[in-house]
């Protein structure tokens, strides 16, 4: 299955535009949280067949951090915030730096040495996942008038293929897609790559696609 089967090219463009605005908000939120000037590239948005998804995220056997949230409201399902191992190290370093700055210690931004405070890594990533889910849902709400909330996040670090087993299995018997949003946050010369996977429940994909179509029509008329 490719993008076109689930969404028309115009609908996909509209989704990309929404996600672009979401990404801008995400960069602002991260900049504030990490006390640095974070920019963001235009996100790559795809609708993928469930079984194709892990391979798009890289080597299925490498350790990857994954924050899982439930979606409730007009669209139900699940949401996964995925951070590859190397990018996880960068994010945690930036957080450490922001915290040290808070107590008056400065450290260079370009050195990404992995020395996470114990327990800090998981809670930081969970919180960043929480924030990004919020800003993306706000963008969807602003355009599509869909109210979506996410439940309390939970995190696991393991092989990406194994982490995504359950949602893929749950969707595999239906013609369904997973919406993948790849973000590249830019900080000076460094890039931090994160993925957001929206896994709508079987009946919710249609709600989402219909709302995108309505919003798109309203925008083109206006």
């Amino acid at each position, binding site marked *: 299955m490719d993008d076109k089967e689930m969404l028309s090219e115009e609908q996909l463009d509209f989704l990309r535009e929404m996600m672009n605005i979401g990404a801008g908000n995400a960069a602002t939120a991260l900049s504030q949280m990490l006390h640095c000037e974070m920019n963001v590239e235009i996100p790559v948005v795809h609708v993928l067949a469930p*079984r194709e998804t*892990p391979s798009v995220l890289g080597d*299925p*056997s490498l*350790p990857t951090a994954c924050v*899982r949230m*439930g979606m409730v409201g007009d669209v139900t399902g699940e949401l996964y915030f995925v951070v590859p191992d190397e990018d996880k190290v960068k994010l945690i370093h930036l957080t450490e730096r922001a915290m040290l700055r808070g107590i008056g210690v400065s450290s260079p931004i370009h050195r990404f040495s992995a020395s996470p405070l114990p327990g800090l890594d998981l809670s930081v990533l969970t919180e960043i996942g929480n924030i990004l889910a919020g800003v993306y849902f706000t963008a969807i709400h602003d355009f599509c008038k869909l109210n979506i909330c996410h*439940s309390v996040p*939970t*995190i*696991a*670090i*393991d*092989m*990406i*293929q*194994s*982490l*995504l*087993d*359950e949602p*893929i*299995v*749950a969707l*595999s*018997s*239906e*013609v369904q897609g997973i919406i993948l949003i790849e973000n590249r946050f830019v900080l000076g010369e460094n890039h931090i790559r994160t993925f957001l996977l929206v896994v709508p429940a079987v009946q919710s994909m249609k709600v989402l696609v219909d709302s995108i179509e309505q919003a798109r029509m309203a925008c083109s008329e206006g």
Partner: protein
Amino acid sequence: MKDESRNEKTGIRDRKSEVLQVRMGEGIVTGEPHIISSLGLGSCVVVTLYDIYLRIGGLAHIMLPDSSQIRMRNDDCGMRNNNPKSEIRNRRYQCADTAIVALLEGLQRKGAMRQDIVAKIVGGARMFSDYESVSTGIGEQNIASVRNILKRERISVLGEHVGGHHGRSVEFHLSSGRLIVKAIGKADREI
């Protein structure tokens, strides 16, 4: 990845093993001394069947506990798909009940004796440990279903590495029947 070489002195070809990848919902049966590898098992379960005398083995990467509970899009878990060329992508391997029967048939077609076949089970984890209330528990269901079916088919289980909250990768060595289980941050374990 075929790794065949000739012995320098004798000129006889050494039969070395080939690594075969089995992805989610796939399965394979072979009598060659290959290594069958399957990466990133979460709630999925890998079942291996092995004829300990003839060294014929099969591995299935099972996604779901029961084919009767789900609606399959194209065919009934591949029950009508008898083309041997499509063996590896056969939908029968997606569900525990059909997958174990498919493996058994595959082994017996290659000459394996039913009383010599033994099984090993790996996987069925619950990846997000604090997600109990919402999680479907598909991993536990997969393990239970696989155990039941093996019991019904009177296949003895020689080893298990199941449950828990972590992912696993497996390597099944057909030359010896060894099954190596790998997990991130843990030592490799043979079952």
